[in-house]
């Protein structure tokens, strides 16, 4: 039974990767938790050389950036999906959809370049900010990145609603918008929910593009809701300080703890998006 042996060991090994990754993250960020307890998560000052590891600025920055991205990308993406599946004639639908799938594949570092050379000058000139590197820039860039994903998945969900449902609604003469709000969207909602969760996961995990445009200053914006200020996100901090933190030091444990938080939240979101096939 060589085959069975090969299949089961490979399955075991590949499913072990996640356990190893999480175990490693927990094990190497354990010294920090031992020394400083959990208080540093809500600490507001991140100065590694004074072993102050406040996570709050980066947490608020990450939440803000992802929220802004969803706020912009969700309505536009779903509207584009409705337009593409309901209003466009068949020929145009294929090409628009293909364009979107192409855009979904564009690497994120290209968005970083775009952010630096298209978005920042635009923001600086239009809103005459002190500097273009703000949470808004990061939010806009992430929105641009997750827009194609949301649009493609939502369009699949809306087109999956059977034509008989649309005709039944038509027979009642309730008009196009009522059909949309009370028949199409309720039935497509599970698909759109999955699209949103996947998009959130990707936006949260994006490093390179955000690193260039968010300003990476570890400080909570003045009134915390002010997104026109430079801020820091978890991934941007890891990206900037990962290379030169000396392995095994407290600073290194703090960075790995950031990674652990990101991984745990992202896994939670991924599980939510695929509820029916997973254990939970």
């Amino acid at each position, binding site marked *: 039974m060589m085959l069975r042996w090969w299949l089961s060991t490979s399955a075991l090994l590949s499913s072990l990767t996640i356990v190893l990754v999480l175990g490693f993250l927990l094990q190497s960020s354990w010294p920090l938790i031992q020394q400083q307890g959990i208080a540093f998560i809500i600490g507001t000052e991140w*100065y590694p050389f*004074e072993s102050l590891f406040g996570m709050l600025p980066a947490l608020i920055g990450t939440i803000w950036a992802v929220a802004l991205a969803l706020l912009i990308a969700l309505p536009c993406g779903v509207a584009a999906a409705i337009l593409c599946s309901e209003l466009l004639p068949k020929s145009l639908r294929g090409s628009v959809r293909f364009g979107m799938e192409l855009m979904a594949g564009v690497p994120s570092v290209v968005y970083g370049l775009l952010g630096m050379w298209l978005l920042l000058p635009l923001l*600086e000139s239009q809103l005459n900010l*002190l*500097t273009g590197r703000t949470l808004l820039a990061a939010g806009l860039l992430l929105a641009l990145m997750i827009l194609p994903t949301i649009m493609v998945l939502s369009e699949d969900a809306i087109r999956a609603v059977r034509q008989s449902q649309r005709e039944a609604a038509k027979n009642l003469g309730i008009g196009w918008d009522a059909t949309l709000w009370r028949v199409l969207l309720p039935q497509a909602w599970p698909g759109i929910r999955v699209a949103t969760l996947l998009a959130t996961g990707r936006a949260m995990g994006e490093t390179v593009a955000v690193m260039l445009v968010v300003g990476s*200053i570890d400080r909570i914006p003045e009134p915390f809701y002010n997104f026109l200020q430079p801020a820091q996100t978890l991934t941007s901090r890891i990206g*900037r*300080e990962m290379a*030169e933190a000396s392995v095994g030091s407290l600073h290194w444990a703090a960075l790995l703890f950031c990674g652990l938080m990101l991984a745990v939240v992202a896994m939670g979101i991924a599980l939510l998006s695929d509820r029916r096939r997973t254990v939970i």
Partner: protein
Amino acid sequence: MFQRWFANALSGLLLVGLLVVSLPAASVTIKVAGSTTVLPILTEAAKQYRVIHPELNLTVSGGGSGMGVANIERGTIDIGMASRPLSEGEAGRIGDTTDVIPVARDAVAIAVSKAVYESGVTQLSLSQIAAIYRGEIRNWRELGGLDARILVIDKEASRGTRHVFADVVLGNPRARAAGATIVTGSNNEEQSVISRSDQAIGMLSNAWLNDRVRAIAVGEGDAAVLPTAENVAEGRYIINRDLNILVRKHSRDEVKGFVDFLRSAQGQAIVQTVGFHSVR
């Protein structure tokens, strides 16, 4: 040119097709990593050194002085670059196994945007610069310049240039910069921010100044000193430092050969051409 291009294209496709797992180690490789300030010297020297020793191959990457020190400590590179002296912790850890060899002298210029320079801010005292970086002075008007908020650019804490700047201006090498607006990484990132904004102040190595990024004189009243070649050579300009390369004590002789080349007359000539001051 065509043969060269055609040969490359052919071998490119061949290799991807063959998917050779391990290629014969044709030539000896010296790995160099570390401060982006020292990078131009090493790359120019590498190019000229290959003329003498064609079989030698040098891989160069940036990442900052911290990365140079960390990688030498981890043993993943042959030559580390640091634009600052080793801190006590580092000296303790790797002091006895690695030599710190200065190859050039450089001044950390206090760089301001062109508009700020032309609006009258041509010299600042150490205390004024410290006040800006601590957030006590927020507008150029208080320093006799144009009426605009100051875009204070800080560098990643591990960068050599920041280490020297903080040591001289703020008192200790790891000081906080509460007034900082954004944090940048490499010298060219900081250079691009200063040149694009018209109200920015930052810390740049002398070789990175250009017409849009102007250095200001540092000092009280008429004792202010511009970071010109003579001032740095005679040490009158106070914010200066050695650009060091870190080499393990008993490293391979190709590495020793390259280090000697750097300190040779030809090496020091390269230092001059790149814009720094020779160590002799």
